[in-house]
């Protein structure tokens, strides 16, 4: 039944104190015309029955033995210490820290998270997190519109399609126009966004240019030149980045990004069929008042002790209401804690090892496919840890391999009709040499 501790005697006592005969009397003010006429739910289950049901559902999934699937969500090791920390009830069963005196654990861990994201991205201020990378990017675009007072945004088609779909939904309400900057997906193309092409499309009413690093095809974009093109048009540069790549790739703050958005899932958060994840956002200090979401700041108490509080709350919905920068109420605190614990656990050396191993194995896989004559790289540009490979009859072979428990990446044709027979293969630190051998064997067997 429910987790209520109340016995019949407890209920009697409460009813007597209240002065009503039965609990139904407490619901007498629901107009008869709108009372529920049905509530046909399954019967309650004891814990062993609940476990059996969840095991049944888990058993209906077939987690692949070998997977090269990325496309925005990456299989990484979740270190035991991360699971341990977020499993602590003091972190997981507490609420938003509106009473800071009894929430210093949450508040300080968010301050550390903000610090870590600033350091990783090379930016001056980071928020306490957002729902996911896609919504963080949408919020960044709206923020750019507020800062520049312009109503149009330019975005590369090499930004993850999930992100672009969410952006379109968020822009519909305020009537913000979206201009697409086509990435070079032509035969023999780079797979990148050309700064000259971006410059040509950046009209003087564009609030920002949004580009992704590495991009949807794994390619390493010319971010500094794209930022220059944006600035030349009076627009802001919004960089959407993959956080583990920042161990090896330049920090956005170093190439002129004005706002950074990212999906933080690779930082110690399981794939979990799409969520919960954690959106990252960072910017320069001079735009902090236009940043949506929560911020934690350091201060002191009356006895000279250092403490942390939610601050600059006048931006937020519970104060500004219809004039708020955004309607956000929750951040993703427990996921942000996972990311902060992860970054602290791996340190700069660990993150570099992770990124290096991912990059090596992606190249190893691409080389193995090419040397076996099974396919070739679709684009010429260098990549980080994801690469687009053209393989004949890819759709059939991808499905056949999935049946065998091998997911051979993401079929790009789903979002890019011009990229038929092209699979996006991702490698991470979990990709073993045996995995690559299995992929090759699988592709051979489905020729």
């Amino acid at each position, binding site marked *: 039944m429910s987790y209520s501790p109340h016995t019949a005697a407890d209920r009697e006592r409460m009813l007597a104190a209240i002065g009503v005969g039965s609990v139904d009397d407490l619901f007498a003010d629901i107009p008869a015309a709108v009372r529920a006429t049905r509530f046909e739910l399954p019967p309650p289950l004891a814990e062993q029955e609940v476990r059996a049901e969840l095991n049944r559902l888990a058993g209906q999934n077939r987690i692949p033995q070998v997977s090269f699937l990325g496309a925005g969500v990456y299989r990484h090791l979740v270190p035991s210490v991360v699971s341990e920390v977020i499993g602590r009830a003091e972190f997981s069963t507490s609420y938003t820290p509106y009473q800071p005196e009894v929430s210093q654990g949450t508040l300080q861990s968010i301050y550390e998270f903000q610090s870590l994201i600033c350091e990783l991205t090379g930016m001056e201020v980071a928020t306490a997190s957002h729902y996911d990378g896609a919504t963080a990017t949408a919020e960044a675009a709206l923020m750019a519109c507020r800062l520049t007072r312009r109503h149009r945004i330019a975005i590369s088609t090499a930004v993850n399609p999930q992100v672009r779909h969410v952006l379109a939904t968020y822009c519909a309400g305020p009537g913000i126009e979206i201009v697409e900057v086509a990435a070079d997906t032509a035969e023999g193309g780079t797979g990148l966004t050309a700064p000259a092409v971006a410059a040509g499309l950046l009209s003087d009413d564009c609030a920002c240019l949004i580009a992704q690093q590495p991009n949807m095809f794994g390619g390493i974009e010319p971010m500094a030149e794209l930022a220059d093109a944006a600035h030349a048009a009076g627009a802001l540069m919004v960089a959407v980045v993959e956080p583990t790549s920042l161990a090896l790739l330049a920090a956005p703050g170093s190439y002129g990004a004005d706002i950074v958005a990212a999906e933080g899932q690779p930082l110690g958060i399981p794939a979990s069929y799409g969520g919960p994840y954690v959106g990252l956002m960072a910017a320069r200090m001079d735009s902090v*008042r236009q940043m949506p979401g929560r911020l934690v700041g350091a201060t002191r108490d009356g006895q000279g002790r250092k403490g942390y509080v939610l601050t600059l*709350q*006048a931006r937020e919905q519970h*104060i*500004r209401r219809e*004039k708020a920068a955004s309607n956000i109420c929750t951040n993703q605190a427990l996921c942000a804690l996972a990311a902060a614990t992860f970054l602290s656990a791996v340190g700069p050396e660990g993150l570099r090892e992770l990124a290096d191993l991912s990059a090596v194995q992606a190249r190893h896989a691409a080389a193995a496919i090419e040397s076996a004559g099974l396919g070739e790289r679709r684009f010429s540009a260098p990549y980080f840890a994801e690469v687009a490979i053209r393989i004949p009859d890819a759709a059939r072979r991808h499905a056949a391999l999935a049946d065998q428990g091998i997911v051979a990446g993401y079929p790009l044709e789903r979002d890019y009709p011009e990229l038929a027979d092209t699979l996006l293969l991702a490698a991470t630190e979990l990709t073993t040499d045996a995995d690559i051998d299995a992929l090759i064997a699988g592709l051979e067997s489905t020729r």
Partner: protein
Amino acid sequence: MSTTLPDDRRYSREHEWVRIEGSMAVIGITSFAADELGDIVYVELPELGATLAQFSSFGVVESVKAVSDLFAPVSGDVAEVNEELRGSPELLNTDPFGAGWIAKVTLSDAAEMEQLLDAAAYAELTAG
């Protein structure tokens, strides 16, 4: 909370004050407003050259827990803003009638002052 209202100026129902200084009108908020808001942490000042219309919004004042629009008590173009408020918004709490002035505008229509309250009338408004 200050109980003596300067009588060298006029007051709006929205708790702004305006004082004539030559051809300029100096604008600020009253101690009543500052007290209601609590410790002020930020002021969004108008831009130089902006044209203000009487009784329309021209800026924002933020405290830790509240936010307020500023409404221009008179019309005019913004000639000067109090840069001190950027680094020390608390001036609005400590000296709202003096060092905490917000902006100076070139007064476009002196007759607008007639629509505002004198010190006594404002004191009555805020007494209740």
